[in-house]
């Protein structure tokens, strides 16, 4: 095997924050290499340094044994490096085709844009994803009109279109569903066969063992372990990542169905994307929303929260019919909503962690005046529940890694002590340790009487946390699993059951 890329002793500081203290990575020709580690350990930073978008402070990079200085994304591209950005690098106002070929447009002889070639090449590229990409995915569609998974697909295609020899996929599967992931893996294998090397970052351990050849693990800004995938196991890898094992809680013993009166009852609610959904949720219950991605699960949660209000049906809370046409109504009634799309739905960029936590509590409690000193302790506690890694409440939210930010946004809602918790794929980008904490916390909240609706794009999460699961298809409930029936097999079956 040839050593294609080598990163050694890479360091990177952001002011006082040390993002990387000793980043290292060795990538062989034609392999798929997993880069793993807890939130904030420096994976994205290392990748961006390799792709030229972040400047390192020290350390060396070499390609095929020759030391290289990568001064920007263009230089990286010239060296054959392409990065799938965790936060994506797409321009919302441009079409799918324009985005895929941005900066490397096909030109006619006179240097004009060759629109026909652009369309042809794009259609060739997107054809592979036609089956799994869902409605509205075409060469001319504007990226701003696409769903998160479709955007990830565009980012994948954009990377592929650059025909690189080194591709870094930074959480490329985070928003993809099973089918989409399968197709993506097929492509990874083809690339491998062509001799292209891939670095693959994910927080899903199954994916690591399914597709990668070798594994590099980082912890606290340093590379701490390397494995050959076939010669190791989950336990060992997780151990390297977190120091001591805090594995995902195993599926708990089925709990007796609570006989308390329902906290939340939906009767045939619907809007543009949800049809006639009815369900009932008791205090202490965690109900999962399953099925393929984009079947209306998020829309149901957003409808219930008043962000995309229902246009039909009724909502009852503790027996009383309520009207929820905007989030403030929901918050006032003790409902909380945690979104997985933190950059868009949650982060107050540039503001302090304090303010980021405070927002929901203020809406709930409606104080006229604010005395930050008196709230500090309470918010510190809220942030601590998920062992968030942060410098202090007055540090800006942007100084945290993606995963740690997400913990803050969960803390934001915990601070309101909600009685109904709506979780919309809340663990996106959260590391294993935090995920375990989070699940334990969700359980505890349920045990204390909260009612929880939980949507996750990962079946394993649903299976390990939920008392029962409603399986969605095309905006409607296609089935319900409970008790003994809660198995991965049944869940997959139900999801595909009535799908076209």
């Amino acid at each position, binding site marked *: 095997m040839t050593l294609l890329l080598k990163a050694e002793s890479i360091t990177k500081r952001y*002011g006082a924050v040390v993002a990387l203290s000793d980043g290292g990575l060795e990538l062989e020709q034609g392999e798929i290499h997993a880069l793993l580690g807890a939130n904030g350990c420096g994976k994205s930073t290392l990748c961006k340094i390799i792709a030229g978008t972040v400047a390192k402070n020290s350390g060396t990079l070499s390609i095929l044994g020759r030391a290289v200085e990568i001064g920007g994304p263009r230089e990286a591209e010239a060296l054959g490096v392409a990065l799938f950005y965790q936060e994506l690098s797409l321009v919302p106002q441009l079409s799918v085709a324009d985005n895929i070929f941005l900066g490397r447009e096909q030109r006619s002889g006179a240097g004009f844009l060759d629109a026909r070639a652009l369309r042809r090449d794009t259609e060739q590229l997107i054809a592979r994803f036609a089956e799994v990409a869902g409605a509205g995915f075409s060469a001319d569609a504007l990226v701003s009109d696409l769903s998160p998974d479709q955007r990830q697909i565009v980012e994948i295609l954009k990377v592929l279109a650059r025909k690189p020899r080194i591709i870094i996929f930074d959480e490329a599967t985070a928003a993809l569903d099973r089918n989409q992931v399968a197709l993506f893996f097929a492509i990874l294998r083809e690339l491998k066969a062509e001799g292209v090397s891939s670095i693959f970052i994910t927080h899903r351990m199954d994916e690591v063992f399914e597709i990668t050849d070798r594994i590099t693990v980082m912890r606290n800004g340093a590379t701490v372990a390397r494995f050959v995938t076939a010669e190791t196991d989950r336990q060992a890898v997780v151990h390297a990542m977190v120091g001591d094992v805090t594995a995902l809680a195993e599926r708990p013993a089925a709990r007796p169905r609570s006989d308390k009166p329902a906290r939340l009852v939906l009767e045939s609610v619907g809007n543009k994307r949800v049809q006639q959904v009815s369900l009932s949720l008791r205090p202490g219950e965690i109900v999962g929303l399953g099925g393929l991605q984009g079947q209306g699960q998020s829309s149901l949660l957003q409808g219930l929260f008043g962000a995309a209000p229902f246009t039909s049906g009724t909502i009852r809370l503790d027996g009383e019919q309520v009207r929820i046409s*905007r989030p*403030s109504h929901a918050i006032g009634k003790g409902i909380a909503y945690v979104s997985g799309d933190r950059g*868009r*739905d949650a*982060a107050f960029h*540039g*503001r302090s962690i304090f303010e980021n936590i405070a927002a929901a509590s*203020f809406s709930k409690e409606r104080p006229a005046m604010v005395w930050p000193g008196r709230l500090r302790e309470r918010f510190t506690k809220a942030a601590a529940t998920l062992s968030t890694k942060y410098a202090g409440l007055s540090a800006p939210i942007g100084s945290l890694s993606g995963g740690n930010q997400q913990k803050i946004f969960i803390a934001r809602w915990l601070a309101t002590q909600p009685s109904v918790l709506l979780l919309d794929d809340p663990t996106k980008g959260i590391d294993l340790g935090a995920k375990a904490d989070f699940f334990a916390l969700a359980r505890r909240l349920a045990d204390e009487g909260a009612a929880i609706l939980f949507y996750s794009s990962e079946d394993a999460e649903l299976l390990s946390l939920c008392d029962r699961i409603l399986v969605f298809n095309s905006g409607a409930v296609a089935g319900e699993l409970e008790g003994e029936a809660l198995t991965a097999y049944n869940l997959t079956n139900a999801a595909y059951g009535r799908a076209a």
Partner: protein
Amino acid sequence: MNRLRSTLTDPLVLATLSILVLLAAGEALSPGFARGDQIVRLLVVSAILGLVAAGQSLVVIGGREGIDLSVGASISLGAVLAGNVMAGQDGSIFLAVLVAGGATFLIGLINGLGVTMLRIPPLVMTLGMTGVVQGALIVISRGIPSGNAAPALMAFVNRPLVFGLPGILILWALVGVLMWVLLRRTRLGYAIYAIGSNERAAELTGLPVRAIRTLLYGLSGLFAGLTGVIVIGYTGNSFVSVGDQYVLPSVIAVVIGGISLAGGQGNYFGAMLGAIALTLLTSVLTTLQLEFWGRQLIFGAVLLMLMLLYGRAGRLRA
């Protein structure tokens, strides 16, 4: 070292430093420039700019490219209305404030509705509103006397009230405190930063984003109208374009005070210092014996230098 660097690049510190440098320059160029009574007079002029900048700050912090270019027209409207209502009578000052503030608050609300409900970009909405208000002013000021400031109002602006300071300075300090309380000690203040920083996230935490933003434009109009009342107290009478000269300076004061035009950042103290720095600069330039074009060149260059110090966007390559 890092702390030192971040202190030195703090907009508030920079604005304060620029003020000291300008004062020193003024004193060096013409001894007596930095005399107490002269500083008080400069502060009076700064206060007028500072009051408009209060509204401008709110609108800019509130985000979504927030900017209010109609403040000039609203100042003129406030001045003309106040002048007409007061007609030189002390007894009518309160009513004048009410009428001027009420009318401009309404205009601001209309701006806000255009920005929030019709989603017109603020720059365009408030620019368009400027034309409408100016037009309306020409219509209403015709035939009606432009009116005079009441003597008590003029004394409030121009004459010492307490500790040798004119009432307007006390008022300005009060506005500074109120703005701080609003932004840092009320839920509304936190909400303003939140909507300025991420509107969708603000909605999802239950904030009435449109109502708040509309209110911000209303407040900007209100501040402009009140500034109009002060302006007529400063100049004695008013004319239809009296507010024009404050429009871009109010934006600049806000920017050199460290309030990012991207929204969700900064505070009113910065804008106050910005207003003082800008007024000082203008006045230092007046005392230079230079041709007009020379003053313009220096003015532009100093603005650019202030931008160089800290009004810069971050590097794309971190």
